[in-house]
Every structure is written in structure tokens, then in C-alpha cells.
């Protein structure tokens, strides 16, 4: 997985994207366009995955190990999986991007408890371990 692209810091573009995103969400126009705007804010992660199901909120909390660790929320329907689609399997190599903010809610004896993630997965590909 080579780093092929030069990463360019565009503060103005990112800030504009946030404004457009906030504007769009306020009117309920959250579509593929908004998703592509979130891509502007994407933060990469990569490492071994240890997932648990978010039994109240749905989705999965993924603890990603080194070398690019993260605690991310995989939200079904919003997070886009790519080959080999093993986002719920422990011990597979996982690589992707997330945007800041995400909460996984799990069942406890006293109700649901929130676990704050570093962010919500935008895209994610995995290895295949036979």
C-alpha cells in the first residue's frame, strides 16, 4: 500500500466543507455529496482490528493496533467496506479513513453506556486470512 499521493493541506477548503456540511445537514440534504465532503476531513488508520459490536447503537467499535492505531466506530450504512470486507473479524489487517466524532453504545446491566471513539469510519479495506 504505497503512499502515492502528496497530501496537501487546504485549510480553507476543509473549513468550507464543514460549513457546507453543516448547512446541508440542517436542511436534511445529507447525501453522497456530504459523504464526499467528509472525505476532505479524513484521517487514515491502519493495523490489526479487534472489533466488538455496539449492542445499543448498532455498528462496531474497532480497536486498530499499530502502526497507525485508532479507536473507530464502524457504522453500518455510513462506513463503506471494501475487499475483503472482514470489518467484523478479529486479527485481520485493516486500513481506512475516519472523520472525527463517533459514539458506540453498548448494553450494560444498568442500560446503555456510550464509548466515545476517535471517529467514524469513512472507508475501510481489510486483508483476508484463510
Amino acid at each position, binding site marked *: 500500500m504505497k503512499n502515492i499521493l502528496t497530501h496537501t493541506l487546504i485549510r480553507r477548503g476543509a473549513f468550507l466543507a464543514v460549513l457546507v456540511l453543516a448547512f446541508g445537514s440542517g436542511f436534511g440534504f*445529507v447525501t453522497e455529496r456530504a*459523504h464526499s465532503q467528509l472525505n476532505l476531513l479524513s484521517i487514515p488508520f491502519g493495523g490489526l482490528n479487534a472489533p466488538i*459490536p455496539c449492542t*445499543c447503537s448498532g455498528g462496531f467499535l474497532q480497536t486498530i493496533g499499530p502502526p497507525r492505531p485508532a479507536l473507530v466506530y464502524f457504522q453500518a*450504512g455510513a462506513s463503506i467496506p471494501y475487499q475483503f470486507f472482514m470489518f467484523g473479524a478479529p486479527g485481520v489487517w485493516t486500513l481506512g479513513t475516519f472523520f472525527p466524532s463517533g459514539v458506540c453504545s453498548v448494553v450494560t446491566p444498568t442500560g446503555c453506556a456510550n464509548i466515545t471513539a476517535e471517529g467514524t469510519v469513512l*472507508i475501510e479495506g481489510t*486483508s483476508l*486470512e*484463510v
Partner: protein
Amino acid sequence: MTRFSPIQYMKSGFAKRMTQNKTVFLVLSSVLVAFGGGALSGWTHLAYSNVPCFGYRDGVPTPDGYGAAYNVLTTARELLVSVTCDKTSATVTVGSGAENQLIYRYGYAWRNNAWQRITLSSTNPLQGNAWYARSANATLSRTVAEMAQESNYVVGYVCQWVTPTGGTGTWKCGCRDGACQNSYWQLQYFSKALADLNTLPDVLTDSNDLLLAYGAPKYGPPGSTISLTGSGFTGANTITFGSRTISNVPAVNQGLIRFTVPADMPLGRVEIGVRNSKGIAEHATSFMVSKPGAVPPVLQSIAPARGMHGTEVTIHGTGFTPTGNDAITTFGPVRNIPSKDGTTLTLTLRPFPDTPSWQDGSSPAHGQSYPMYIYISNTNGVSDQPVTFTVDI
């Protein structure tokens, strides 16, 4: 065969979910706006300009009926059909630039459900009205929506002059494997999503620590070459391959090791590890030693295609072995599944078996569903494409 495309995902899930739960998204947007003034300065923008965006390469199976997008006649496995993407265009390059290659001046691109001819150009002169030496390319204009599709296929055709040691030179064209008995159009595909993944930092070579990420291919007979990707590899690595130990394996570079499956290796699944002077790679990857000449499983359908936790499903296909079929699923493997007829496999799907609320439907998240992708692995190989089951919780 059911497969969720990114567009389907966004249309059916993301937009619907977000419009249904606007509050969540408003909170999220507020957080983002709050961050806008300061924290954004540390974020990166993934700009698109000639980013590699292709899918087929060494280790990714080539579909039946097509030639490989990479050079199967060399150990370097260099790319012969590759694509780079901008936001609304894709540039297809055919040929690796080697002196012994001729590139047919025409290729085809899949668009609007049909193959459309494309004409390549090159800085090298046209030879015999049909061939360019070394490499040639073509730029395809596409809409943003088209770039997002996963069905952006292109084919090219490369001939290579090969002279075996002590033998007579010959042309090998459109090769699919090292024997190159037949010639095919050489298939590649591209998408924006692949560009997205390729724009990620190189998380592997960022690290100097010993790390084993994955191996490719995932199956092959004794004598196969396996490439291990990771970091911290040195000039003398010890590979553990199942019960065998292979010593003093030099790395191609600090992120890549290649080694050969021992000729007398028994068939079956093995785990691969690496150790060297930097330590022991904690993560082991896996490989299926398959029968020489065997045809890997092909998955055709799954029934039912949707159900609750604990649903018994039957997978229809070919290439299943009487015993020892492993279902590699999104939520972990189900191993040692028998097949009486070689064409059906029956198994029970229980993702997260240690989570009671997933099993009895008592989860507050009840009503949600997840795609569960399933590959089959056995001593014939590993299925190229998965079947998909939707699990309702």
C-alpha cells in the same frame, strides 16, 4: 451473487439513515464546525491528481477469461495495465516500459454496459500500424458518478519477446499465467475508492519495527512464491511456515519478503510468521497449500440470503472438498465444513457468539442488519468472489 457497491451503500443506508436521524448528524456537524477554527489545521486534504486507482495486481486473482494486468513472466510482477485517476478522468497505461514489449494500439473500456474501443498513444513511433514499443496510454473522461463505480473495466494487450536460457526466442502475448499457453485481453479496473485507499499514508513503511501485515497470494501449490508485506524486514529473516522453519531469507526491501513454499509441504492451511534481529512479528498471516492444478472454489449463491443470527444457510458452488472447507466470513471463520456432493455447503452463521443480545434479538439495536461476506477456502484454493448474507439482529 449479491454484492454491495459503495453507491448502493450510500443510497440505501447512509442517506436514508441520516435523514431519519437528523439529530445525530446535526450534533456531528456542530462538532465539526467547532473544530473548524483550529483543529482543522492539522487535517489533510486528499487531493486527486494522477493517483493510482486500479485493483488488479500480483496477489489479486484475475477473473476467468482474461489475461493478467501484471507481468506473470517475471518475478518482479510489474504492472502491464495500470490506471491513474483524477476527479473526472482516468489515464490507462499499457506496458511496463521494458524494451521487449509491444503494445497493441487499441484497447477497450467498459462503459454504459458495453465495451468501447479506446485508442492508445505513445511517445514511441507506431510499428506496423498496430503496435507501440515499451508502453502506451489513453486518457478516459468520466463523470464523478462514473468514477465512483466499481465496474470501470479496461483491457489492453501486451506482447513480450522471451528468450529462455539456451532456447529460441518467442513472442508471449496476453498472458494469464507463466505458461502463457493462450492469449487474452489483459483486464484492469479502476475506481475512486481505490484512489482513496491509495492516498493513505504508507502505514507500513512508516514503521521501523518488525511487523507482518499480510501475505499474497492466499493459496497455491508447493513451489509457489509468497510475498509477505510488512516492515522491519532485514537481510536475514527466519520464516515459520506451519511446522517448517525457513532460515536466512533475505528481504527484497524492508517492507517485502518473498519465499517459496517447500516442495514437500503437506496440503492444508498454515500460519506464517517472521522473526529477525528486530524481534518476532506478533501477527501471523495464513496461507492455504493447495493441490497442484486444482481449480479453486467458485461460489454461485447462498440460500437463504437473509436471516437472523443462527440461520442455517446452504452455499451453492463448485470445487468444495469432502471435508475441510473453511468459510471465511466478515465476522470470523467457520472451519471444517463437509460437503457431500462437492457443490453444496451447509453451515450455521453465528456472528459474535459471545454477545447474547445478538443471538436472542434483545439488542436495543434490534432491527439493524449487516452484510456478511463469505469466502470459501479449501485445498483446491480460495474463492475469488464472496457470496453475501444479510444478518438481521
